[in-house]
C-alpha cells in the first residue's frame, strides 16, 4: 500500500520535473522569438520618428543635457580675430545676384571671376579663387539637370509631389518678409504695452513650452552674439551698414528634424521643405505670440531669410555641437535638424552650451566626408581652417552647391547625403538611446571606438559616385531605400524600370 503511494508520488514528481524542463525550453524559445519580434517592431516603430510620429513634446525623447552644461562651447574655439560674416559669404546671396545679372543684363560667366558684375560677389571669390570653377560648372550642370529631369518623372513623381507640397507651403507669406526698417517692422504685431514676466527664468521656461506647442522638437535660448550677424545685410532695407538693432537682445532658437524615411533615402526621395515649412510656421507663430505680449520679434527662417547664422547661435543655446560637415549636430536627432529663430527684446535667461564629445567622434569617423558625392567635406583629422576667427573643418560651399542642384527633383533641391549617413542621425529607439547616454559619459572613448568599428565594418554605404544622377555617372543610390509611400510603382500606373541601391530590411 505504502509503496503504491510512493510510486504515485514518484510518478507525479517525475511528470512535474518533465513539465518544468519542457516548459523551460518552450519559454526559452518563446523569449527568443519575442525578442526578435519586439526588436524588429521597435526598429519599425513610427513613434521613434522624433518630431514626426511622437508628439513634439514627447517626454522621453529628449536627452538630459544638464550634466553636460559648460560655460564655453568646446567646438567654438577662437583661433584668430573674429569678423562678422560678409553679404557675399551667404551662398544664396551670391547665386541670386549672379542669376539676376544673367537674366536682366545678359551677363555670360566665364573662367575669369574678375568679370563678375556684383562687387560683393567678386570680393568672395577674391578670397576663394579655387571655388570659382566649381560655381561655373554648377551653371553648366544645371542645364544638364533640367534637360534630363523629366525622363525620371515616373520614378520620382511621388517624391516631387511630397516636396512640392511643402515647397508651396514654404513660399506662402507667413511670417511676412520684412519690408521696412527693423525698428518699425519688428514691432508690427505689438498692440499694447508689454506684460511684465515674474523673472527672465519664468519667461524662458514659458517660451520653450510655447515652442513645443508650436510644433518644435528642440528649443534653446541664448544672448544674440553680434559676431554671427551678417554685415550690410538687412531684409527690407536695400542698403544697410554694420549696425545691429538695439532691440535684438535675445534669441529663441528652435528646430525640427526632417521626416525620417525620406531623409534616409536622400537624394531623390528626400526634401528639406517638410522641416523648413514647419520651422518657418513656428517662427511666425512665436513672433505673433511675442507681439501679443507686447514684445518685438524678428523671425529668422529657412529658405534664405536670415540676418544671422543659425548654427553658432544654436550651439551657444546648448542644442548641440559643430560637426565635420558644418551643420548643427544634436544628441536627439544628430544633424537631421532644420533651425529657425526669433530675435526679441524680451528678457530671457540664456541656456548654457553643452560638451558631448561629439568633436572626438567626428575626428575619427569621416563617413560623411567619404560619402559626399561632391567631395566638399574636409577629410582632415582635426578642424583644419580658421574661418572668421573660429577653428573649424574646411567646407567648399561652391562644390556642394554644384552637386546640390543635381538632385533628381524639381523642387526638393539639395543633397542631404551627409545627414543621412551620419551615425548620429538615429531615431529614438532603445539601442540608440543606450548609445547616446553611454558615449558622452565614457571618458576612455572605448564605446566610441567600438561603435566606430561596427559602423565602418558592418554598415553598407553606397559609393559616393553612385549618389549621382544617372546622367552624371551614378545610379540614384541612397543610404536607405525609399519608404513604401514614396515608391511610385506601388501607387501610380508606372512601369518599374529602375533598381534601388541602398540598405533595406534584409529579410
Amino acid at each position, binding site marked *: 500500500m505504502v509503496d503504491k503511494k510512493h510510486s504515485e508520488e514518484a510518478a507525479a514528481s517525475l511528470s512535474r520535473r518533465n513539465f518544468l524542463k519542457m516548459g523551460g525550453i518552450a519559454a526559452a524559445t518563446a523569449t527568443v522569438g519575442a525578442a526578435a519580434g519586439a526588436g524588429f517592431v521597435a526598429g519599425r516603430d513610427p513613434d521613434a520618428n522624433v518630431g514626426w510620429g511622437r508628439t513634439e513634446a514627447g517626454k522621453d525623447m529628449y536627452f538630459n543635457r544638464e550634466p553636460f552644461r559648460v560655460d564655453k562651447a568646446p567646438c567654438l574655439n577662437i583661433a584668430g580675430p573674429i569678423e562678422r560674416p560678409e553679404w557675399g559669404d551667404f551662398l*544664396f546671396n551670391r*547665386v*541670386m545676384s*549672379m*542669376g*539676376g545679372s*544673367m*537674366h*536682366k543684363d*545678359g*551677363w*555670360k*560667366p*566665364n*573662367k575669369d571671376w574678375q568679370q563678375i558684375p556684383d562687387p560683393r560677389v567678386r570680393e568672395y571669390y577674391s578670397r576663394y579663387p579655387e571655388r570659382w*570653377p*566649381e560655381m*561655373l*560648372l554648377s*551653371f*553648366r550642370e*544645371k*542645364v544638364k539637370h*533640367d534637360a534630363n529631369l523629366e525622363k525620371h518623372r515616373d520614378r520620382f513623381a511621388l517624391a516631387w509631389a511630397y516636396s512640392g507640397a511643402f515647397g508651396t507651403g*514654404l*513660399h506662402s507669406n507667413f511670417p511676412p518678409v520684412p519690408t521696412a526698417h527693423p525698428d518699425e517692422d519688428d514691432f508690427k504685431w505689438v498692440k499694447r504695452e508689454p506684460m511684465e514676466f515674474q523673472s527672465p527664468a519664468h519667461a524662458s521656461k514659458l517660451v520653450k513650452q510655447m515652442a513645443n506647442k508650436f510644433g518644435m522638437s528642440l528649443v534653446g535660448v541664448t544672448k544674440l552674439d553680434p559676431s554671427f550677424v551678417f554685415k550690410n545685410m538687412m531684409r527690407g532695407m536695400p542698403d544697410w551698414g554694420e549696425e545691429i538693432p538695439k532691440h535684438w537682445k535675445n534669441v529663441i532658437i528652435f528646430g525640427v528634424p526632417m521626416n525620417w524615411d525620406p531623409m534616409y533615402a536622400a537624394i531623390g526621395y528626400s526634401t528639406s521643405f517638410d522641416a523648413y515649412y514647419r520651422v518657418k510656421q513656428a517662427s511666425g507663430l512665436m513672433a505673433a505670440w511675442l507681439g501679443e505680449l507686447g514684445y518685438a520679434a524678428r523671425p529668422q527662417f529657412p*529658405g*534664405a531669410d536670415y540676418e544671422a547664422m543659425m548654427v553658432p547661435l544654436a550651439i551657444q543655446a546648448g542644442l548641440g555641437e559643430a560637426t565635420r560637415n558644418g551643420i548643427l549636430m544634436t544628441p536627439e536627432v544628430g544633424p537631421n535638424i532644420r533651425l529657425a529663430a526669433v530675435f526679441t527684446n524680451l528678457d530671457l535667461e540664456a541656456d548654457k552650451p553643452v560638451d558631448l564629445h561629439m568633436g572626438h567622434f567626428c575626428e575619427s569617423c569621416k563617413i560623411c566626408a567619404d560619402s559626399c558625392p*561632391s*567631395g566638399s567635406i574636409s577629410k582632415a583629422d582635426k578642424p583644419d581652417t580658421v574661418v572668421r576667427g573660429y577653428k573649424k573643418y574646411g567646407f567648399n560651399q561652391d562644390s556642394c552647391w554644384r552637386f546640390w542642384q543635381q538632385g533628381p527633383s524639381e523642387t526638393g*533641391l539639395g543633397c542631404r547625403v551627409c545627414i543621412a549617413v551620419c551615425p548620429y542621425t538615429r531615431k529614438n529607439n532603445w539601442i540608440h538611446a543606450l548609445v547616446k547616454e553611454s558615449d558622452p559619459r565614457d571618458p576612455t572613448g572605448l564605446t566610441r571606438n567600438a561603435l566606430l568599428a561596427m559602423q565602418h565594418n558592418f554598415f553598407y554605404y553606397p559609393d559616393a559616385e553612385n549618389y549621382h544622377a544617372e546622367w552624371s555617372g551614378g545610379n540614384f543610390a541612397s543610404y536607405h531605400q525609399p519608404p513604401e509611400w514614396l515608391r511610385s510603382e506601388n501607387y501610380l500606373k508606372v512601369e518599374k524600370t529602375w533598381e534601388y541601391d541602398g540598405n533595406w530590411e534584409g529579410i
Partner: protein
Amino acid sequence: MRKRIMALFYMLVSVLIFLQLGTRLKQMHYVQASAKPLYLVSQTSASAATTQQEEQAIDYSKWSHQYDDQQQ
C-alpha cells in the same frame, strides 16, 4: 546526433563555397569581359577646368530667371 549535425554542416558549407566561387567567377568574368580597368579614379576639378571651352554655347538667360526669384 553528432552525425546529423555534421551532415547538415557539410551541406551548408558546400552550398556556401559554391556561392562564393560562383560570385567570384561571375565578378572576374564581368571584369574581364568589360575590358575596363579594375578601379579608375580621376580628378573631378580636372573635368571642371577642361569643360570650360563649351561655355559660350549655353544660353544663360533662358533659365537664369529661376535664380532671380528662387526662394531657396
